[in-house]
């Protein structure tokens, strides 16, 4: 156990700090606004970074939710690190800054839900860190009052635990405890894969009530946690793939559609564990990403068959399991997925084949879908379907022959009742459980990422 020297604590500063903390958290709007005004001027390089990223998002230059999520998290990390924080209300200032950037990012590509997810995750991290710091302070106060000892003292496991317990208690007064915090109350919780927000370690380190160090502390902790988030995003394949062996058995036939790196790694992990099985790959018109996946799989020694999208119904009776990737998972357990997957899901349901969706935790979106076929869809260029030159005479509206319209949607919405199982980096979950999982990752205050003049929490 790592131990830190604990500075001398006097009664009054702590109380004062507590006062300011409560004031901030209960939303004393004026002071918060003043602090924010103070902290608004940012380093120009962050602004250029943000603008670059916005531009790329707008031009749809970044593809894939994983890449987007990672880039977003990295951007937010630099925003936080560049953000000057005042002595009081640091959390509010950070939240405000992240929100301001996040709002722009979400507006730049509202269809790429991973951006919004990461922004909300980071906001949640800031809140959690702030809370844990405050509770640590409270715990420290309690301990110092109890022990009445003025010297530096060595803290042991128990005191950390008590700090966490106080933190949990403090949180519970504000909102219902999340599953994660409940889990973390147990001593072994530090080993859980997602210790991102309030691990015992950071608690231990943050037992300082000195104001100056606390300023740096919060920012430092948040950046640490965001780093962990980035780590999580980049390793989510492995964590999902680890579970492959539990789901794929010998001599099974797996069907997938389109291309997904998660699916590729998942299948490959099962193959690594000496499972022999066959894979059917539906090609995923109009972008034919299935061809790429099939090539990769065959190169890795898996027995692969390519079929057209329209042959899915014909082949489904031979299939033991459908494993697909997703673009995003909504709070109700519905899936935004590459176009064609709804058809596959219906086919799977018709033949009672399990329909398994692989999704990293950055794909979990706390929003409920409303009219997802239209509002959460992206119509891409028709040139992916047919050649402009070949049909340009059919599109000449001037001569009255312009009756050809081509629609090229990118996504399908698969309703939750068609999904048998979600596999995330934390394990397998039922669609009806998704809302609970999501509550762990996001705080309810951040569901609407919109800048408001009174940005209290």
């Amino acid at each position, binding site marked *: 156990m790592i131990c830190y020297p604990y500075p001398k604590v006097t009664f009054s500063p702590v109380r004062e700090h507590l006062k300011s903390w409560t004031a901030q958290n209960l939303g004393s709007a004026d002071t918060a606004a003043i602090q924010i005004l103070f902290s608004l001027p940012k380093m120009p390089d962050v602004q250029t970074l943000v603008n670059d990223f916005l531009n790329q998002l*707008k*031009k*749809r230059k970044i593809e894939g939710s994983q890449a987007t999520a990672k880039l977003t998290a990295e951007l937010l990390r630099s925003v936080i690190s560049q953000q000057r924080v005042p002595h009081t209300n640091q959390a509010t200032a950070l939240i405000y800054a992240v929100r301001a950037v996040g709002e722009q990012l979400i*507006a730049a590509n*509202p269809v790429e839900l991973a951006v919004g997810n990461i922004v909300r995750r980071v906001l949640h991290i800031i809140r959690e860190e702030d809370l844990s710091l405050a509770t640590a302070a409270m715990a420290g106060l309690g301990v110092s009052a109890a022990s009445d000892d003025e010297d530096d003292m060595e803290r042991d496991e128990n005191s950390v635990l008590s700090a966490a317990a106080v933190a949990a208690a403090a949180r519970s007064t504000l909102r219902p405890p999340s599953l994660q915090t409940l889990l973390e109350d147990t001593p072994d919780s530090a080993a859980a894969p997602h210790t991102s927000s309030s691990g015992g370690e950071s608690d231990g380190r943050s037992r300082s009530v000195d104001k100056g160090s606390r300023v740096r502390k919060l920012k430092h902790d948040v950046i640490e946690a965001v780093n962990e988030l980035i780590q999580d995003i980049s390793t989510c394949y492995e964590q999902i793939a680890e579970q492959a062996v539990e789901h794929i058995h010998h001599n099974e036939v797996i069907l997938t559609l389109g291309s997904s790196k998660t699916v590729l790694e998942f299948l490959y992990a099962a193959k690594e564990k000496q499972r022999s099985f066959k894979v059917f790959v539906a090609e995923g018109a109009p972008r034919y990403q299935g061809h790429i996946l099939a090539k990769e799989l065959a190169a890795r020694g898996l027995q692969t068959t390519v079929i057209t999208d329209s042959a899915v119904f014909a082949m489904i009776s031979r299939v033991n399991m459908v494993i697909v990737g997703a673009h995003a998972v909504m709070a109700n357990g519905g899936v935004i997925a590459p176009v064609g997957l709804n058809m596959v899901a219906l086919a799977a349901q018709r033949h009672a084949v399990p329909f398994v969706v692989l999704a990293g935790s950055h794909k979990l979106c706390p929003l409920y879908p409303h009219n997802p076929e*239209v*509002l959460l869809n*992206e*119509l*891409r*260029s*028709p*040139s*992916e379907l047919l*050649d*402009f*030159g*070949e*049909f*340009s*005479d059919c*599109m*000449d*509206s*001037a*001569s*009255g*022959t*312009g009756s050809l*319209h*081509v629609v*090229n949607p990118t996504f399908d919405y698969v309703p939750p009742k068609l999904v048998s199982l979600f596999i995330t980096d934390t394990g397998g979950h039922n669609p009806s459980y998704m809302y609970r999982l999501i509550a762990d990752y996001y705080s309810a205050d951040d569901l609407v990422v919109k800048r408001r003049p009174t940005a209290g929490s």
Partner: protein
Amino acid sequence: MSLTQALLEHKERRKKNSNAVMTMVIKRSKPNPAIHQSRLGTDELFMAIDPDTKQLVYYEDRADQSRGILHLDKSLLVDNPSLSLHHDKQVELLYFGVMSLACDNLINFLELIRLAISYLQDCYIDICSPEVLSLFTDNFDYQHLRRHFVKGLLVDDIMGYKIFVHEIHSDYAARVDNFRSYDTVSKDIIHRWTYPLVPDVMNFGKTATKLERQGMYRALEISQSQSAVIGPFTVIGSGTKIGNNTKISNSVIGEGCKIGSNVIIEGCYIWDNISIEDGCKLQHAIVCDGVIIKSGAVLEPGVILSFKVVVGPEFIVPPYSKVSLLQQPIEEDSDEELEYADSTSVMGSQVDKSDEITSKVLETHFTPASELGMGGAGHVWSTCESGHEEEWRHSVAPIPKDKIMEAIKTMEDDLGFIHDDSFLPPSGELIPNSNDSDDDDHEDSRDDSYYFEKEVEATFLRAVHENIQESHLILEINSLKLSYNKLTSDCAGALFYAMMKCALDIPHSSADGLLQNVQVVFTKWKKALTSYLNDKDEQIEVILKFEEMCLESAKEFAPLFTTILHQLYNDDVVEENAILSWEDEKKDADEADKVFVKQAQKLIQWTLMDE
């Protein structure tokens, strides 16, 4: 489209060949089969491209719509063993058969035509090297990028600059240079061919736009009546208000517009801050910023309203009219200036400027009853010289039905014609055509000989007046002979003509006087003439010329024909052989032509006797 690939190719080529100064981007597209017109209303286009190197060897765009013959330089075909010809109109291809072409290339060529029927569209995107800039400085008189610059570059073989092409397939690229292409490109954007450059992704304004079913783009803050019907493929900007029972389809409506009740809008482009009152009907029109259309007004297809025009109530704006607050520029302006004025005031690239002007104009020209009904403001521009043809070709309105019918009819006629004598047998048939330059030659030579005679005459007169030596005169005439590519006999005839004319011009009282003049001239200049008369043919030519003169230009000589001929014989200008063969030639001629033969009969007999 993404320029990366084209740019890469350009750079690669530059490395290999520093003369590759430009890369043009072209795109395949099909023209409307019925009317010979591309979607963008642009002119016809011929391109010849070397398929291997992608070098552009020939470029021709045709401003006039007349179908013509394409002249491909023979050397092009020699230099490029394979060549693909691209054209944006199908029928035109069949006219290739009339081209002047060497026979041995023909079979090869016809095969090529069959291979390379394709339709291209010039995107007007060029990747240029720095040399191009200096070319523009050197040739500051380039007015048209394609017609002057590109063709100039292709024809000019001194610098050896080359132009290459880059063809794009699924990407989208087009140029807006008239109202038709404005309409077409806008529609393509709404149909998302330009993704991600579409209204809901790249919102150019401040407000976000959502795409709904059937291609409806709507900004977030719109107040729309429940009973208003908004059809497919429309864009509606934020802050726009739409009244009851209004129908909008296939249109673009800008920000902050007020549209009243019972309005029908079809295929229109309505810019920002426009108010359209109740009961208006707009079809295929472009309405610029700040226009007010009073209740009940009707805009017929193809109307363009410039900034801040006011259309009076119940007024019907006739089809294809252009309305501006500015007076139409006076006709004496050159075409270019007209176009310029047109583009600034209507297309509005310089909004500020035109605003300034319009406000001025408003003060002076606002009259309660103007050309646009009660309370209207604006001037209807009459169509320019280009006329009605251009109007329908370039307007936003759909092409009228009758035009399409007309076009289909002419196309069928054409096809009939083509079936008659198209697909010429590969062996021959074409050669007569290809040799039709002979006719040209003939025609040319006739012209030439006229000028030649004039020149010789002038030279001779100068020699007479300035007392130039005979040898110098001969030298000058020789040079003329060479420059006009004439025979010696032509020279003889021309010189003889000039001498006789000279003799005629010296004042004389009677026929005897004239004869004496002739004798004087001949004694002086005989040597010059005889230097061209080495042969019998040339002497005959002289006699024929003399005969012609007597008949036409100088009738005074007619009675003296025999005398002068005798004189010529005595002076050894003409020999008896020539006279006899002249008579021989004239045997079959008409009676009228034989006048002089009869007149000279005595002389002829005498010469025969003499022999």
